[in-house]
Structure formats: structure tokens, C-alpha cells
């Protein structure tokens, strides 16, 4: 297909899609409307289970099975990336040149690194109370680790990042989620049903039954997944070269 044909197909298809989408807009519930039947029920149910953050309650309790699906996608895409970006036979590793980083940047990175790690843990730990949770906190903590690459150089990062450990952590966190789900089954209720632990006192760290457990498992899973992903990309961009290329 030539470029011109492709543009015409795009123009026709795009115009049709645009017309349909715009026609559908007035049929949606009006923006800012007061009827949210599912939302009201979810809030009610979440308060009954002593979970202050309703969104965490949806993710890790009322629709925890959906989150298992998301976990699967996350896990699969990490495996896919690791397989795609492995070192092939015609490639070799070249030690990266040590980077010259100015002193203010280095100091900033070394001061912010622990603060960012702590913030990541805080966001995970308070997931069932305030905005945040495993998904966000995991990414923050994993990104924080890469301040070492930005503030020092790649070798400094490699020293504190035994990649095998993070791969194991990834798998452990995913199975931790499943085990918590099966525990509900053993307890005589349904898979991933939040009946295992007492619901606790509203708005405290230990409230919400299994929500904090699943939240922590997701936090670990996401953090390990991001570290493994970025490690593969950094390897490719910084270290691995084609053998004949240089």
C-alpha cells in the first residue's frame, strides 16, 4: 500500500469514526451528572469494610480478580521484554565509559534517592487510606533507584541492583497475590474474597482486611517489574554492542 492510498484509507475511516464518536457523545450520561449507581454502591460497600480509600477497595477487594488480570498483563509484558532484549550471540558487552557528573547533581541525586525510596514506601503503605497504593508507590520506588544512574553512572547502579533478585521478587509478589486469593478459598469462601482478616478500625494502617496485603504484593510486583524492564533497556542502550559494529 502506498502512502497516498494509506492516507485516503485513514481519511475515510477516520472521518467515519469521528462522526460516530461525536454522535455518541450526547448519548453518554451528561458530564458532572448526579447518577452514579455503581459508584454509590461501591462507596457504601467500601465503608462497610472499613477501607478509607474507596479506590483501593475496588482494586484490591471488590474487583480484585480484575487486578489479577492486570497483574498477568504486567508479568507477561515483563517476560516479553526480557526475552526480546536479551544479549544475542553476535553481540558483546562493552564497559560503559564513566560519566562525568557535576557535583551539585551528584549531591542532589544522593540526597533525593533515600527520600524518594521512603516516599514510594509511604505511598504503598498508605494505599488503603490516602491517594496512592501499590501501583503508584512501586513505580516511584523503582524510579528512585535509577537516580543512581543519573547522579553517578551505570556501574554504580549495577552494584546495588542484583537483577536476579528482582526477577525472583517479581515472581514472588505475583504468587503472593495468588496465595492470598487461594487463602480465601481455603477459608471456605470464594477466590480473593476479603474474609480472611478482621476489617480493623476505620482509617488506620491495618484496616480493610486483605486489602493491605494485596496492595503490598502489587507494590512489590510493580517495583520489581519496572527495575527489570529498565535494566534491560539500560543494558541495550549503554552496554550491549554489535560485535562487528566497532
Amino acid at each position, binding site marked *: 500500500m502506498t502512502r497516498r492510498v494509506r492516507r485516503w484509507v485513514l481519511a475515510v475511516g477516520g472521518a467515519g469514526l469521528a462522526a460516530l464518536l461525536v454522535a455518541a*457523545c450526547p448519548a453518554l450520561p451528561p458530564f458532572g451528572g448526579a447518577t452514579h449507581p455503581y459508584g454509590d454502591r461501591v462507596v457504601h460497600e467500601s465503608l462497610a469494610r472499613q477501607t478509607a480509600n474507596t479506590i483501593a477497595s475496588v482494586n484490591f477487594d471488590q474487583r480484585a480478580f480484575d487486578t489479577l488480570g492486570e497483574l498477568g498483563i504486567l508479568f507477561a509484558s515483563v517476560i516479553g521484554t526480557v526475552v526480546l532484549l536479551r544479549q544475542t550471540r553476535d553481540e558483546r558487552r562493552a564497559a560503559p565509559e564513566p560519566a562525568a557528573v557535576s557535583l551539585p547533581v551528584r549531591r542532589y541525586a544522593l540526597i533525593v534517592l533515600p527520600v524518594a525510596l521512603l516516599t514510594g514506601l509511604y505511598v504503598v503503605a498508605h494505599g488503603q487510606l490516602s491517594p496512592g497504593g501499590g501501583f503508584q508507590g512501586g513505580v516511584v520506588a523503582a524510579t528512585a533507584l535509577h537516580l543512581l544512574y543519573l547522579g553517578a553512572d551505570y556501574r554504580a547502579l549495577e552494584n546495588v541492583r542484583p537483577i536476579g533478585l528482582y526477577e525472583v521478587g517479581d515472581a514472588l509478589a505475583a504468587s503472593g497475590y495468588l496465595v492470598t486469593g487461594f487463602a480465601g478459598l481455603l477459608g471456605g469462601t470464594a477466590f480473593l474474597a476479603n474474609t480472611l482478616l478482621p476489617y480493623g478500625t476505620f482509617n488506620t494502617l491495618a484496616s480493610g482486611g486483605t486489602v493491605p496485603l494485596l496492595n503490598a504484593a502489587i507494590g512489590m510486583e510493580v517495583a520489581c517489574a519496572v527495575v527489570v524492564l529498565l535494566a534491560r533497556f539500560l543494558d541495550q542502550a549503554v552496554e550491549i554492542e554489535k560485535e562487528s559494529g566497532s
Partner: protein
Amino acid sequence: MMSVLPYLVAVWIFLTGCYGIVTSRNLIHAVGCLAVCQSATYVLLLAVGYRDGGTAPVFSDVEPGSRPVVDPVVQALALTDVVVGATVTALLLALVIQVSKRHGTVDPDELSELRG
């Protein structure tokens, strides 16, 4: 107008992203455009869940029942997808790197010429 403006913005973002993917001359740019398309879905979902004068259904600092709250279901859907979408972006970028290794180019037009 206000009752459909957010939906129209979501439609605009989605169509712009699609245009970018189809006309892209660089696969990395196309992956970036796909990220733009993804953000359209978040805008649409959150716009559906919004309630005038509402606040977030997070009761760590407000008394339950004291203020109207927005819909938490759509927020939960969007929230997980933001992070999972980023890892899928990473998978696509890994594919692009693989394509560049195998064929030495990331221009989709040159790639289709290679295939014949």
C-alpha cells in the same frame, strides 16, 4: 456545551493519536502516539465518573457522607491501566529495538519495502 466538552476532548485526543500512528515515519514516534491514544481513554473514563461539586472518595481526611463523591469504579479502572500501559509501552519499544536490530531501520515504509 459543558456537558459534552470532556467527551469531545477525549475523542479529539484519540483521533489525533490514531492519525499520528498511521502517518508516522518512525516506530518510536508511533509508540509515543499510542501513549497519546491511551490517555484519551483515561480522560473519557474519568469524565464519565465526574459529579458536579464532588470530591474524591478517599475518606482519610473528610468525614464519609459529608460531601458528595465522584465515581470510584472508573478511577480504579484508569489507575491500574496507567501503570500496566507503561509496561506495555516498554514491550512495544523492545519490539522496535528488535526490528531495528534485524532490519537496520525503524521507518515503517522502508520496512514494508523490505518485505516486498
